[in-house]
């Protein structure tokens, strides 16, 4: 099993550009999450999904959009990139929040710079 796969690993965007960060998991997990990690700030939740067709906002959703059309995929969309979105983005998944409370499986991260 590949686990949680994120692409791309690195990306540089110009201000105002758009892009989609891809995340896929092959563990049949129903919960998926997007976090961003800023230096010295820990991980902050952007969006999460409890199953296909269901998404919800996290702590810092502004400037991002998500969709969950399948169990496996949970892409994160940046519509108008801003320097404040320079960060490392992590996708994660878990089986169910109840059965595996807090046991998240993380991707390797996407390092995004907006210049």
């Amino acid at each position, binding site marked *: 099993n590949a686990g949680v796969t994120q692409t791309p690993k690195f990306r540089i965007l110009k201000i105002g550009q758009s892009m989609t960060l891809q995340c896929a998991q092959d563990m049949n997990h129903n*919960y998926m*999450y997007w*976090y961003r990690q800023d230096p*010295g*700030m*820990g*991980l*902050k*939740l952007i969006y*999460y999904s409890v199953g296909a067709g269901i998404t919800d906002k*996290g702590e810092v959703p502004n400037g991002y959009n998500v969709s969950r059309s399948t169990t496996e995929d949970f892409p994160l969309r940046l519509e108008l990139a801003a320097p404040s979105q320079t960060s490392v983005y*992590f996708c*994660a998944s878990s089986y169910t*929040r109840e059965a595996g*409370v*807090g*046991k*998240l499986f*993380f*991707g*390797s*991260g996407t390092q995004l710079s907006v210049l």
Partner: protein
Amino acid sequence: AQRVTQPEKLLSVFKGAPVELKCNYSYSGSPELFWYVQYSRQRLQLLLRHISRESIKGFTADLNKGETSFHLKKPFAQEEDSAMYYCAPAGGNTPLVFGKGTRLSVIA
């Protein structure tokens, strides 16, 4: 509001010395508590969870509900313990809330 406080950004200890990474939380209800670790060039991964009462890589953590703390301890630090450590509570219907993390540096 849910909040996690890890007061030390950086903790440096000598190899063989005891180490304690502090975590205090403010959370409604009775959350589960977790420690996650990120080694250099590796993915963030679960280290241990309080409900399992386990010891992983020599680390233990005791949940103190009175002090709302979940400090991570190891009696003898090793160089391979150098990493970023995150405390995280989870409960109710909300996803994990991560602390800002503590970077542990074990000096040979």
